[in-house]
């Protein structure tokens, strides 16, 4: 009995030791954002191509693969004002973050390096309308930065079975 009670007192060794430890708490998010790794997936952006046009070609690969079915793309073919070549453009690109699961499959399949995820988070709102990303908002997100490391090309290069060096993964 005595032995058992003395053993119980060892519990205090842990709590007392921890009283002296440095605390591990992150700053509150409205004061300073936590440091995220570069692959962090928390939002979306539609990037521009090298000509400054939207890179999306409205191929609907992301719309088809999205398990959640939240992406709706409508496109049309027209002449590019920059290069003069005919290509497809998205007329509307709606991404309803209310049902997004951040699985990165849209990035995985994108053929034109257009859609990317962001490390900056989606801000909570008081209505569901706050969470709908339209084409304008997606492009504005891209200009704002905080893009995740994984582009469609980089992801696929990393997963390529032909890849020789095992290092991989560096940005």
């Amino acid at each position, binding site marked *: 009995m005595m032995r058992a009670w003395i053993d119980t007192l060892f*519990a205090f060794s842990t709590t007392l030791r921890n*009283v002296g430890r440095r605390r591990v708490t992150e700053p*509150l998010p409205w004061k300073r954002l936590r440091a995220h790794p570069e692959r962090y997936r928390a939002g979306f952006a539609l990037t521009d191509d090298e000509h400054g046009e939207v890179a999306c070609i409205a191929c609907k690969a992301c719309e088809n693969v999205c398990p959640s079915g939240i992406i709706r793309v409508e496109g049309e073919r027209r002449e590019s004002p920059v290069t003069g070549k005919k290509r497809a453009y998205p007329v509307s690109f709606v991404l309803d973050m209310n049902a997004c699961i951040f699985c990165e499959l849209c990035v995985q399949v994108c053929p034109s390096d257009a859609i990317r995820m962001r490390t900056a988070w989606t801000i909570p709102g008081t209505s569901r309308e706050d969470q709908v990303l339209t084409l304008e908002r997606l492009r504005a997100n891209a200009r704002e930065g905080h893009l995740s490391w994984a582009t469609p090309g980089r992801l696929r290069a990393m997963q390529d079975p032909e890849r020789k060096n095992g290092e991989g993964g560096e940005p």
Partner: protein
Amino acid sequence: MSRVLDALRMIWEIGWLRGLVVGFVTLTVVMLIAAFTIWFERKWSGRMQNRPGPTERGYGGWLQIFADFFKLLQKENLTPTATDRRLFDFVPPIVVFVVLSSLAVVPYVPQGPAADASVGVLLALAISSLMVFPVWAAGWSSNNKWALLGAMRAVAQSISYEIPLVLSALVPVILAGSFRLTEIVGAQADWHWFAFWPPGPGLAAFVLFYLSSLAEANRIPFDIPEAESELVAGATTEYGGMKFGMFYLGEYVHTFVASSLAALLFFGGWEGPGPDGLHWMLAKALILTASVIHVRWTLVRYRSDQLLRLCWTYFVPAALVLVFAAGLWRILAGGLA
């Protein structure tokens, strides 16, 4: 200046005025101390767990408890249909009333408490053990099964630990030869704190008193009546708003009262190095309260039957033995003197 002192002396000598003034001052201070204890518990448990605890409202989060209070003041009144309405609504203020009342005989200054009763120890213990009735009534009147289980456990536990609590409080009484709390403290003058002198029964009685008062105040490892992980919120499951606030407040005041009693009975009350007085008493009571909190955030809890077995197989006989040891010491020391 002397006029003020005269006025104070007059107040002190007239019974009802003394009760009134001391009552208001003591109760206000004790309520603030209870608020402070809640704040301290949240900060200290945070410290133990490498997190800051409340920080945002006021410096170090000290206003947090007031925000909670104002919030509770505005919550809707709920009385579930199935309850025994009258009892259900009547019980919560009783909790606070009972624990606050026990302070009438607990002295914090050498001049004595509001009512320096000749049976102070008994009265304090008796009133604070009344706590079991509102808790039981709350659990039963709720007509909720979790509350019923909580109330059943609370009653069984409180009445069981009543015995070692009273018996271990008898040890200082025997050593001092009086039930009056001021005289018990007086008997501990010159560093003859009963926790350390006579060596043995005093310290053991303190340990018993401390553990039993943990059980009386429903603190871990003896908090089975309101074990959140088992009984949702125990007897208070159906209580919301300020009705719950009363239980919440009562719990912390109870802890402080029990710590004050322990300080008076075993640690010489206001005796201490330098000038005696309120500061030593408060310091001792608060240190004991802090230790209760530290224990709470370190240990897990017993099962109710283990708890009762612990009481009846170890605590009660141990307390009896201690009473006899104290009696023997008293007689032998008296015979020697």
